[in-house]
């Protein structure tokens, strides 16, 4: 049995440059530098905690589970949308400072916290719940193939990494955005759901799927590996030809 070798990792100093904004004291956002001693296996979230806990308690961000399932800590790290808890320091170029800023296209509340209300509003508008009028005594049956049809889009954790990476959303806050479409997809392609027509109708709106310019930013940003652009394309197809 080969033992796993855990390489001995040296600690090193990393510079984080964080976009700060405190509405109670600042008129506009500013960049602030912090040097922290980190290990390569640490995550960007660990670095933010280290700053908050040892240097500046006022640094403000959301986080909860710290392993990529609760969706609280989406932020822009070196210009890319990622979850701070899933981004390892060693996977970044540490010879340069790490830039951390709030996700774009949503109003900044304080430091890395944004107002998610517009994002949730778009999600709510697509009727994100199963509509089925039958009253089964037991479970509804669904074949493994039918279940697989919408598997990918059930993974969404509503972190907003996709929507806030979308250039269309940056310029047009009315656009539903990828996350809302992903959640519509999850129901449109669920064989048990009876409300596909309504959802397709909602997304056929001028602020719906047709605003998508397939830049694939959303797919690259998704921390859950959802093929977001593909899901949007499937919704477009369903509007044109019905769900298949």
């Amino acid at each position, binding site marked *: 049995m080969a033992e796993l070798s855990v390489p001995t990792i040296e600690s090193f100093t990393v510079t984080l440059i964080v976009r700060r904004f405190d509405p109670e004291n600042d008129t506009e956002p500013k960049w602030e530098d912090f040097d922290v001693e980190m290990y390569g*296996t640490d995550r960007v979230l660990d670095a933010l905690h280290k700053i908050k806990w040892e240097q500046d*308690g006022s640094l403000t961000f959301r986080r909860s*589970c710290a392993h990529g*399932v609760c969706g609280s800590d989406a932020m822009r790290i070196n210009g890319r949308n990622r979850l701070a808890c899933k981004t390892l320091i060693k996977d970044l170029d540490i010879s340069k400072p790490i830039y951390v800023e709030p996700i774009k296209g949503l109003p900044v509340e304080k430091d890395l916290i944004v107002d998610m209300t517009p994002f949730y509003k778009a999600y709510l508008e697509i009727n994100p719940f199963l509509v089925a009028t039958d009253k089964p005594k037991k479970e509804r049956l669904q074949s493994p193939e039918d279940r697989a049809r919408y598997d990918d889009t059930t993974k969404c954790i509503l972190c907003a990494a996709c929507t806030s990476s979308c250039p269309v959303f940056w310029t047009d806050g009315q656009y539903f955005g990828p996350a809302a479409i992903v959640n519509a997809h999850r129901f449109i392609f669920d064989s048990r759901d009876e409300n596909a027509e309504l959802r397709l109708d909602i997304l056929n709106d001028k602020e719906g799927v047709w605003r998508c310019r397939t830049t694939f930013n959303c797919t690259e940003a998704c921390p859950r590996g959802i093929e977001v652009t593909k899901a949007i394309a499937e919704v477009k197809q369903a509007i044109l030809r019905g769900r298949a």
Partner: protein
Amino acid sequence: MAEKVASDDNITYHSFDVLIVGAGGAGMRAAIEAGTDLNVGVVSKLFPTRSHTGAAQGGMAAALANVEEDNWEWHTFDTVKGGDYLVDQDAAEILAKESVQAVIDLENMGLPFNRTPDGKIDQRRFGGHTRDHGKAPVRRSCYAADRTGHMILQTLYQNCVKMGINFFNEFYVLDLVMNDGKPAGVVAYELATGDIHVFQAKSIIFATGGFGKIYKTTSNAHTLTGDGVAIAFRRGIPLEDMEFYQFHPTGLAGLGILLSEAARGEGGILRNSSGERFMERYAPTIKDLAPRDMVARAMANEVREGRGGGPNKDYVFLDLTHLEPAVIDAKLPDITEFARTYLGVEPYTEQIPVFPTAHYAMGGIPTNIKAEVLSDNDTVIPGLYAAGECACVSVHGANRLGTNSLLDINVFGKRAGQYSVEYAKTAIQVPMPENAADDVIAMIAKVRMAKGKEKIAQLRKELQETMDKNAQVFRTEETLNEALEKVQELRKRYENISIQDQGKRFNTDLLEAIELGFLLDLAEVTVIACRERRESRGAHLREDYTERDDKNFMVHSMVYKQEKIEKNTGTNMRIGWKPVVVTNYQPMERKY
């Protein structure tokens, strides 16, 4: 919708028939059951889908018998035996009986369970769940890949949205207002603004989750600081069975991130540094699928006896390399990605370093089978309910079986919803005392302006380190006394804390300080209960009392807060004991 009854400069008042504190699985299941005929509100520290139910992976137990013979009586027996006979058997019976409907409810709400070839809900094996009273593992866990908790949380939230449930998100409840021993409402702090809100309600349900952050190595979220449990305790409600804290066997080594028991349910094997499948020595019949307390202890023992792996020989290995990559991708996609992301290990070809991680509180706020909170062994506090991890019914006894917690939140969350509505329909609102928010306002003012010498993060770190060192898998009178002394020292130092953020908006510096106060209370209760239970049972292993002692300790512990120092504990806590409800199963030796 919420009715605002009055308002002055800083405080907003709200009035509800049923108010639910916490928007995880139990809270939202309660909300769905409570419905919208009455005024129902949900107050949550987090946006609902951020709750830690979403981190649950492996499944939800129910004897559907979709893939092989099974029945609820076997499930009840397994739950009782798994809990080392400290389970209240009337409650376990309800849990097992109502499990089938609980799963059907979720499927009907839209939950995307994995399916059998004929389209039914698929089921898989899990630790401690057996056919016919221990003969062999049984397929009882209903699952959605290894993100069952995520799918439950999403599905419940979706249905709350569908029903128009009224949420107050990122509102942090800091106090339970009692008037003459009866609950009048809660006081909350709005994170975005720093404003105070007073919620009065006829029925109040606590569904605030666990407190894994008393430990350093934990699968729990940063936000799991036991707020609801500590608030209840501060208001005179006893806490039950706090010595029983579950350490999940397979946390990612060094990090504590959970790798589901489903990995072993699907055939994964634990090995020590010489490659031996060591569980064969500890549980010859069901081996790697023994209950969590036994597996965690076996792992810790392997490491202690020098058979651990890695440079410090401080972990063992979870071996999935014999499984088909396609099976891993279909059934365990998330956890294998955790291994890749955080340890750089490829589970197709490499074994994953694992070690037990603090995972789940079996104890908590005492309730009966109607989810009503008790003020002693059997006195109901009318209008106050608790469900989920914050509560102790007790269906988990001394050790919870995997998949029984997602079940617990659904069965007892639903019951809390049901009975709280029934009560609110005829109850008269307990009057909200004048100045109900004064205590919270004073607490916040004190913390916000705190300019002492102690750093919150440092105190929390010391707390978590002493709990890991002294009150983890192995415990003795000596280690527990050391932990107690340390916690008491930290409580003193907590009086001298400092925070840097004096602002009102999203003051998470303040939030962490208040959370630490709750953690200190709960750590102290835990250590006291650990010390006073001088036997070994389930998750509680006393190296100085290694046997289970049914003669003296076949009872639940109940820790009460007192004004004065108690002689028997040396603290301001009193310990009492409560009989276990036994219906069909007399305690037997626990072998697997």
